């Protein structure tokens, strides 16, 4: 079967790969580009572990076909920190003990960043509903929600 050549941008850098037409963006990121920070929990768009930004839109990478990202811009968990400086969400997840096993964490951080970009000061309920597409089985969400709200406060310049 002939493979498709895809040129795209991943975390601000040009990237290219060959893939099957039926391959998902998730598989391409993980297997062609070696970006395994984006996780597969279900493959059906139900768990949010593979959350990435596609042209500024939050999507589950398992529901995007890899050829669809031709000429577009993808942001993954690997692109969230700026050099050695963690994003406030990453820092707050650590400070609040908002992860236990950590498999859902990349997806949560990508989704929470999208939330705070859309709505810099969400209420607890807004954060809970925005992040309802991300499953966590370890934490009961309490510390995740606190970390997200605290990161939002810090990004707004309010010290917690």
């Amino acid at each position, binding site marked *: 079967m002939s493979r498709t050549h895809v040129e795209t941008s991943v975390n601000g850098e040009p990237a290219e790969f060959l893939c099957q037409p039926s391959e998902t963006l998730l598989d391409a990121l993980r297997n062609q580009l070696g*970006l395994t920070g984006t996780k597969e929990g279900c493959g059906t768009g139900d768990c949010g572990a593979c959350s990435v930004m596609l042209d500024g839109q939050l999507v589950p990478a398992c529901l995007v076909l890899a050829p669809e990202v031709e000429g577009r811009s993808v942001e993954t968990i690997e692109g969230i920190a700026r050099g050695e400086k963690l994003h406030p969400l990453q820092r707050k997840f*650590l400070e609040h003990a908002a992860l236990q096993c*950590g*498999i859902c964490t*990349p997806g949560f951080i990508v989704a929470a960043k999208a939330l705070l970009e859309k709505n810099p000061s969400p209420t607890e309920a807004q954060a809970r509903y925005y992040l309802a597409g991300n499953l966590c*089985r370890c934490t009961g969400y309490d510390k995740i929600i606190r970390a997200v709200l605290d990161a939002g406060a810090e990004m707004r310049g309010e010290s917690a």
Partner: protein
Amino acid sequence: MSERKFKYVGTRPIRHDGLDKVTGRAEFGADQEMPGMLWGAILRSPHAHARIRQIDASKALAAPGVKAAVTGADMPKVPHRWMGGAEGGMDFGDVAENCLAREKALYHGHAVAAVAAATQQQAQDALALIQVDYEVLEPVLDVERALAPGAPILDPELEPMGHGALPAKPTNVATCVGFRGGDLAQGFREAEVVVERSFRTPMVHQGYIEPHACIARTGEDGKILIWCSTQGAFMVQMMSAMALGLDPNLIKVIPSEIGGGFGGKTTIYLEPVAIELSRRAGGRPVKLVMTREEVFRATGPTSGTSIRIKLGAKRDGRLVAGQARLVYEAGAYRGSPVGPGAMTVFGSYKIPHFEIEGLDVLVNKPKVAAYRAPGAPMANFAMESLMDELARELRIDPIELRLLNAVSEGCKAPYGPRYGPIGLVESLRAAKEHPHYKAPLGKNQGRGIAAGFWFNAGLQSSAVVSVNMDGSAVVRTGNPDIGGSRASMAIMAAEELGIPVERIRPMVGDTESVGYCDLTGGSRTTFATGMAVIEAARDVVRQLRERAAKIWSCSVDDVKWEDGMAIPLNAAAEKNKPLPLIALTVQMGATGGPIVGRASLTAPAAGPGFAVHLCDLEVDPETGRSEVRRYTAIQDAGKAVHPGYVEGQMQGGAAQGIGWALNEEYVWDAEGVVQNPGFLDYRMPVASDLPMVDTVIIEVANPTHPYGVRGVGETPIVPPLAAVANAMRDATGVRFEQLPLSPPAVLAALEARG
């Protein structure tokens, strides 16, 4: 002991593996690849019960890219042998057949064949070319059918195990357990009030977000390398060896980061298959990663149960008699957690006269695996629902009723031993005093309370602590870090060495880099492996004192270790100044060489952890949908090493239990085909389903641990099922005897109530 002042224990440092986990760098089971790697795929039975007449994989083997195929007939027949473990026992023969079926497929999803190919797609495509000739048999889908005369028999060779009158062969009853005390008939004669009900809970899954994954590579010298996501590398080594009839020392297991387990990764599914595929593919590494559907169909779950309890009490609320019969689905092979269910069902209360009977029954569903406090949540749901009924019947406050009957130090547990210091009474009092318990309720709201406990395991652990030239230290154990245990290990080493937690690097070893450790399970890691870390760190401190004594030419008895420094005492103090750790480590070479501390131990009985949960539920009478409005978890942690992760266990366990109570269940059709093997239809709690979960950590020191630590991971899933159901009773006036309390079930009950 309990008066000890701690410097690092009880603080909340950033976990050492945290950075890798928030940046996506941490490598989980599916994140590894190896040069020349092939992808494997597994063909699973479409039938819940079928005889496998023949499997022909020749067409698959001839397909493009396919390098190997394997069926059950290619695997050695492993004799049945039962062995106990951290989270219940298992039979090696069963585990091997569960990895790849032999004569029969016993559930919808049972692995029957596997292939390895150059690409994932080629492996998937090749599965369709494998021809399996099945003779479809009637499936046994519930315990009533399994126990009925003339029921289809899953395994004609099954030998019932356990106590009492065992059923005659052939039977679907795998195990019988029983406990009794006092004189049951006498107890019920003394009773002034009797309550009795039957309860059911469905089969549910652990629901870890990371599917099972492994890579296996075989070598020309017979040595085998396995990389996998597991709760125990040594367990994978031993069980894979047993399944293939190999010497365990041929197998090296490197545990990846683990994306959740909750007991579900205390066994093996993929590893022997991957090894066999690798061998047949000339030693190329083979990667197997389950899909979510495979996870639901073929791994986990825990038992569906049917439980009947009868309680007798005096008018003042004192329990005098209790009788319980627990019937647990084992799934396709022996091994439901009915044993711990029977041990825990009456374990929270003083009941002078009791009889407990438990049955482990085979049905054509996936073989159950350990799930957080295996067996206890279901038994506790039944018991604590009935305690709520008794409190209503007697018009006694439900916490007062429990306080009146609560076990405390010196009480004899129904399963034998006497309790040491435990925190049930303290937890009940904390619940009673908590503002949550006194807060007013709104319309359509109800409040439920439930207690519960888990034994916690001890078992075998090893640890190595070494100090570096720069005065930092490395801690190595063999327990995969499933929820922050590296941080706990580092905190305990810091406490002994007297250096900051950040100066310590905790790591998880593979099967060749650390002494034997039983798996991460039974809430044992912080308790038992932590104890090994403390002892290993004390071994380092002993050596550091010796080095200081050598430098000062004094007796080691004249050197004490405090706050990260060797401090001279007595005569030595006159001419010497304290030496900090780094002053000793820079000259290790001159004073006797590198310093490595080690410890290995079998930890004593761990000391049960008790908890009390409070739940406020609001029910929409029009739809039957309910929402948890407020939740408080109170638990005895003995001593919280890292309170943030203790709270996290309490909150996470509560959330999992709430899911079990409200929505989670396997749905089967009449043929035993799973109808909801995905996260869309198997409904786990999401962020918008839950409120914040308040926590109260009680600390009743556990005398078997140097700091008083108790395991905390499992206890918090024990009370929520009943706490939610009791809140539903309070909100609606309806006693639900069956979980889940999903909107259709609640709506139907409300309509029947009128």
